[in-house]
């Protein structure tokens, strides 16, 4: 479709891919200004998944359509304001009361414009909702105010919590005296990020243990609520070559520290991811061994006990409301 190329031409100067995390940490001055995502600071991030790109293109398409309409409508308004001034002796045309023809035209044209917007939007919805053939499934549970990641499939057993990084946590206290600009990735860093492989369809199963949270990584074009009693699905597939650290935040008011539960995802190549999983498993085995050498499986169940009713209720998905 030609319009796609046209949209790409119109795209406002978007920055290159996100800086690799290592580079960001290497120098403080970079850390200060390092964007949390591929946004240029005033527009949506172009992102690092096909879905994010599609959303960005849809957003820009609609944006330019709105700009076009604005030029016509505001143009007519401004022309009226300048041209038909009482102070300059304009005489009102009081016979101009209504015109069925014109009114039909400006009812039909917006409908057509809306169809132009709705078609690509509907196509993208179909993709977003297609949860089939995922390569890795991770169960994500929201808590006040942290995330728990429980891996399934090949990484079964890997299970940890992800909370706001210590330095951010100190700096964010009222009257802490610490300049947030001196903290790398202030409020967007965690002690242990979610790690996923690139080029793999990663499916998240989201739920919550207390109140409603929302998991959001702008660069993945992915946001979904984590609701107690429900399992919501979400998928993303990071383009190979875009490995790096991507940052977002909880996007549903969840209490006092809603602003302090970041979502951080480290994307590795499938090989590096496999190494990471093996290291995690070895670490967990080691941690479990001194306590009870006979039951290494305990490591897999190290998650805090879950309430039975919650698990039962969680069998429903939000899609069946």
């Amino acid at each position, binding site marked *: 479709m030609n319009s796609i190329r046209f949209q790409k031409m119109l795209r406002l100067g978007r920055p290159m891919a996100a800086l690799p995390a290592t580079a960001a940490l290497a120098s403080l001055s970079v850390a200060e200004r390092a964007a949390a995502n591929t946004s240029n600071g005033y527009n949506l991030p172009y992102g690092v998944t096909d879905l994010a790109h599609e959303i960005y293109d849809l957003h820009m398409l609609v944006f330019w359509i709105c700009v076009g309409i604005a030029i016509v409508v505001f143009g007519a308004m401004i022309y009226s304001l300048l041209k038909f001034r009482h102070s300059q002796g304009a005489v009102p045309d009081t016979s101009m009361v209504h015109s069925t023809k014109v009114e039909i035209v400006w009812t039909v044209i917006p409908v057509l414009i809306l169809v132009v917007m709705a078609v690509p*939007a509907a196509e993208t919805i179909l993709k977003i909702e297609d949860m089939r053939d995922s390569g890795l499934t991770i169960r994500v549970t929201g808590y006040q105010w942290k995330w728990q990641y429980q891996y399934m499939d090949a990484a079964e057993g890997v299970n940890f919590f992800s909370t706001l990084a210590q330095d951010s946590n100190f700096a964010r206290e009222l009257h802490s005296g610490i300049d947030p600009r001196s903290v790398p990735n202030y409020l967007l860093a965690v002690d242990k990020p979610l790690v996923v492989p690139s080029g793999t369809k990663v499916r998240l199963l989201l739920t919550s243990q207390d109140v409603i949270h929302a998991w959001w990584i702008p660069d993945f074009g992915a946001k979904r609520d984590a609701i107690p009693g429900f399992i919501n699905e979400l998928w993303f597939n990071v383009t190979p070559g875009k490995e790096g650290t991507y940052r977002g935040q909880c996007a549903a008011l969840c209490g006092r520290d809603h*602003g302090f539960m970041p979502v951080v995802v480290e994307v590795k190549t499938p090989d590096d991811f496999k190494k990471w999983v093996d290291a995690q498993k070895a670490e967990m085995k080691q941690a479990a061994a001194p306590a009870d050498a006979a039951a290494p499986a305990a490591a897999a169940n190290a998650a805090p006990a879950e309430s039975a009713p919650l698990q039962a209720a969680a069998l429903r998905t939000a899609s069946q409301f």
Partner: protein
Amino acid sequence: MAQSHDIAHDDHHDQPDAGIKRWLFATNHKDIGTMYLVFSLIMFFVGGAMAMIIRAELFQPGLQLVDPAFFNQMTTNHALVMIFGAVMPAFVGLANWMVPLQVGAPDMALPRMNNFSFWLLPFAFTILLGTLFVPGGAAAGGWTMYPPLALQGGNSFPMLIFAIHLMGISSIMGAINVIVTIMNMRAPGMTLLQMPIFCWTWLITAYLLIAVMPVLAGAVTMLLMDHFFKTSFFNAAGGGDPLMFEHIFWFFGHPEVYIMILPAFGIVSEILPTFSRKPLFGATSMIYATASIGFLSFIVWGHHMFADGMPMAAQMFFMMSTMLIAVPTGVKVFNWTATMWRGSLSFEPPMLFAIGFLFMFTIGGFSGVMLALVPADFQYQNSYFVVAHFHYVLVPGAVFAIMGAVYYWMPKWTGNMYSMGLAKTHFWLSTIFVNVLFFPQHFLGLAGMPRRIPDYAVQFSDWNMVSSIGGFGFGLSQILFAIVVIQCARGGKKATAAVWDGARPVGLEWTIPSPAPYHSFTTPPTVLAGELHRA
């Protein structure tokens, strides 16, 4: 004047009671309208003060002024106070003043209920604002009160619910009064389609209010039951459904959004023709457009919940129905533009506010269409982009229309002209600062800043600082508004009956003297076909 002199002989209530009794026992629509408007102005400053705290904390990254819990109390109560305390009572106040004057009725149909519906509000808001002083602080779960978070509230929780019930009862009674007055007390000869457009928009608004305020009451009552009586309407652990609350809430919440904008449409449709010296273009299609928006408002609530997880068919349905709203809204904007086209425009303060409304409400409409698109909404939802969107439709939208209405009709109310210079200064300061305040919030949201956070990552610093400066400027500018209103109430150049002589407004309210006599239209005027501007 002759008219009010005649009735003085057989009516011992021709003059208001002296002192406090005039207001406590008020049954006169003008007194009650004034009380609503004054109450609304006070609440506008209370809610505004909360906004100032929010913008001060967000001036730079890091927490400098308030605890996050208090910040959440501010965002929650800013919304509740502005919606239920400032915007809605302002519209009811305008309806009280103007509906009887526009349809040629002597008063509202149900004056004692009118008194009750106003006097509930000070109590409701005393309770609501009182929650700031109870242990645990005020409600902090957002004005949307989503469970389970809302259920974590302390002593403020039952007070909040009770206050909302009182506001709901008040709104329903106000709406009943408007409907009964319009349906039964129009001047002989005034057909529904001839009725002034402000009354039309209020009639539709009143039906929306009656339809959805009980839904809100039901939703918050279920919350109360979950909290105190161990029910599990919304408690997943008990087999309940937290998402159900969101569905019920937004079934109320979306029509509520239109409750706050339809009367504004009516006001703008009154002001633009006057100062364009030309009849409203497509008046009948304006009425149909308003009715369509009212109907559509009941079938779009799901667009607030796309990120909640929804069947694909529902996503498609709510996306299409939401986009459809752009059509009647577009018709309105085009009709307003056509009203100015080939007119003879002058720029008195009401006209300035109406023109400001036209431009900035349309910007809010554009971001509304963008938000309707489900895939894009996944990025926008709960970000500052949404904050920018609804503040554009509510502040330079609804609030500008209310201020325009006050500047338009205040000389009729007080009999005095106000300072045009101060009012114009108020307009220009408000317009400049409201854009400095809210336009950068589009950028913040797109760049990834969630809403309802007291502190943010450093890359959001610049636009937040700009936005806060705009906020302080906008807040301070509103002091000018209060000064203009107080000056006008105290005195000034006398207004004529038509007030805007040069512009010759058309409508029954301009046929009575300024200030409007305490009792007007005690003998119904007869409206001849072709007499009103929309014949």
